[in-house]
């Protein structure tokens, strides 16, 4: 599904990813944990094609295709979705309109028919209930004045309606209280399927109580430095990342 080999990437003059290898199979959920500044968000941006994140060597194969060759919108069409660590505000554009523009764009790309307004509303409503998102939130401008929890729930809603094949979730748990964490965690878990792979970036293992990963990786200093199962996440929570920092140094 996704095969990353010896990936090096830099932002400006600074190399952030320094030979990262990662393989994710269809339907698998992988968690990536790691200290602040390790390069987790950088990895998510490189995979989604953000400008300014320059790949200097290595390869990324996604469904057998060279992912790095594609424009960001094409990657989205191909099924790559990123739940942003910091979702972006778009003043004046209602969340509903944004969702519709987005879903219809990827549906066009995928050769599916576009939704009209009525069908789309029904389609969205199927997802909003699980995420405890009311119609009033859909009328508000994209992320403008949203609380931390609302922003993250809106990201998961977008993931649900865009039906990705590879979902990258960048700290979707940060800034959430216990209830919001549960809603988001259950929302994501409901979207697990044999055709959908996920890469869950998190700082804390608490999210992984809801989204139970098949594999857990530790990312430190631009590389995967350890890989294990759910137990690894629990150990990390207890012991911290200090020993990886030393290993990297």
């Amino acid at each position, binding site marked *: 599904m996704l095969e990353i080999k010896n990936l090096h990437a830099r932002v400006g003059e600074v190399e952030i990813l320094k030979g990262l290898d990662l393989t994710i199979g269809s339907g698998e959920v992988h968690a990536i944990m790691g200290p602040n500044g390790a390069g987790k968000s950088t990895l998510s941006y490189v995979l989604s094609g953000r*400008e300014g994140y320059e790949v200097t060597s290595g390869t990324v194969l996604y469904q057998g295709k060279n992912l790095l060759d594609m424009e*960001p*919108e094409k990657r989205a069409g191909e099924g790559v979705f990123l739940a942003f660590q910091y979702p*972006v505000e*778009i003043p*004046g*554009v209602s969340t509903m309109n944004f969702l519709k523009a*987005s879903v219809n764009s*990827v549906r066009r790309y995928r050769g599916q028919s576009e939704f009209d307004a009525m069908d789309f509303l029904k389609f969205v409503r199927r997802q909003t209930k699980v995420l405890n998102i009311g119609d009033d939130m859909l009328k508000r401008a994209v992320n403008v004045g949203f609380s931390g929890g609302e922003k993250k729930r809106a990201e998961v809603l977008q993931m649900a309606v865009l039906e990705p094949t590879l979902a990258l979730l960048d700290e979707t748990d940060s800034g959430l209280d216990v209830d919001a964490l549960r809603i988001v965690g259950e929302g994501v878990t409901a979207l697990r399927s044999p055709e959908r792979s996920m890469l869950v970036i998190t700082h804390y293992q608490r999210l992984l109580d809801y989204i139970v990963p098949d594999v857990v990786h530790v990312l430190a200093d631009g590389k995967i430095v350890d890989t294990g199962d759910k137990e690894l996440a629990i150990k990390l929570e207890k012991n911290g990342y200090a020993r990886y920092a030393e290993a990297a140094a």
Partner: protein
Amino acid sequence: MVAVTETVDQVELVEKYKYGFVTDIESDQAPKGLNEGIIRFISAKKEEPSWLLDWRLKAYAHWLTMKEPNWAKVGYPPIDYQDSYYYSAPKSMDDGPDSLGDVDPEILDTYKKLGIPLHEQEVLAGVKNVAVDAVFDSVSVATTFKEALSKEGVIFCPISEAVKEHPDLVKQYLGSVVPYSDNYFATLNSAVFTDGSFVYIPKGVNCPMELSTYFRINASNTGQFERTLIIADAGSKVSYLEGCTAPMRDENQLHAAVVELVILDDADIKYSTVQNWYPGDENGVGGIYNFVTKRAACRGRNAKVSWTQVETGSAITWKYPSCILQGDHSVGEFYSVAITNNHQQADTGTKMIHLGKNTSSKIIAKGISAGKSQSTYRGLVKMMPKAEGSRNYTQCDSLLIGKECGAHTVPYIESRNKSAKIEHEATTSKIADDQLFYCRQRGISEEDAVALIVNGFCRDVMQELPMEFAVEAQKLVGISLEGSVG
């Protein structure tokens, strides 16, 4: 339904002229140039009474003493007023070509991008109850729903017809808001205006449908000088929309219109414009000079006027729809979106003149500049000594796309009454990279993302447009910004 079909048919008739006119149609033109003889020619063509000819000649004599204004932040080579035709009209309505086959494919392409084969048709075909006056070069070629409207006492007709059929109304109000001596371009218009719409809404009547005028410049080397006069009598209400298009040409064509609105006690006029004149090509060649004077006089108590404009076209836009708030408690509003791309220049804004007590005005202006374009908001808020308790709120936002464009805000504030309140807010921003990336990550192409973000930026203005036209205006935003990123 019958009425709707009628509208569509009428417009199809007009459409035939729209494209064929450039090459094969026979038109009736005044000789090139401008002089007293030309003005007499126009007046004779229109079979005007002598008072109107005298008024035109007075305006012309005054114009000769005037200098072209140069205070606006726009630049263009001197206009040769003798190198233009001041009257051009199709000789007959049957001379159009049978097919659209010989239409410039780039124009067709533009309409295709809008999702419609023909601009006016889309707006009209999907919408009920819109009466249309279609002004083609110097004449009105069709006005729809006249009978239906006249049942309510509403007069909606070409101004040249109003001069004949309703001379008292025209004589009373023409030039009463924008006098013939007002400014260089308005004075020129007073001398040579050819057609335009006339509207009278009688006392207490809520006009049963939207009224609209479509202006089309077709003939080359021809200026268009239309004149619109709308009178809302006491307690009446009307919503009026104008749309404008012109073919693509290498030359610059002058469009110097005058619009006068008169609003009496408790009456309400909503005037919306979707201006899409040809803006010139990406190198700045050709395009319309849109030098327009629009003014509303709120003469009555509680009179209300609301100007909404979406300006996407023209090489140069010079226009300041204004409100004279004379009646106590009268209200003036100005909502504006001005988009400039490539080499377009826009200097636009409004004037709010508060004369009466407790008058209020609101200005929401959104300027979007892309390419090498320049956009200026210029606005005057004036509180006169008797404007006790009056207030104004102004919000002016500029959005820049790219590094070579400019946005400027020039507010003039003059308060001669201590109890008057004036608030002004202004912002300048750019489309942020993270906004673009966020949209693209969601599958939205870069151009669609720009259109989406800009439409969001303009939302407060767009939502003032009549619903049927808002959709068209939103599409126009996208089209006019094409090629502005990447």
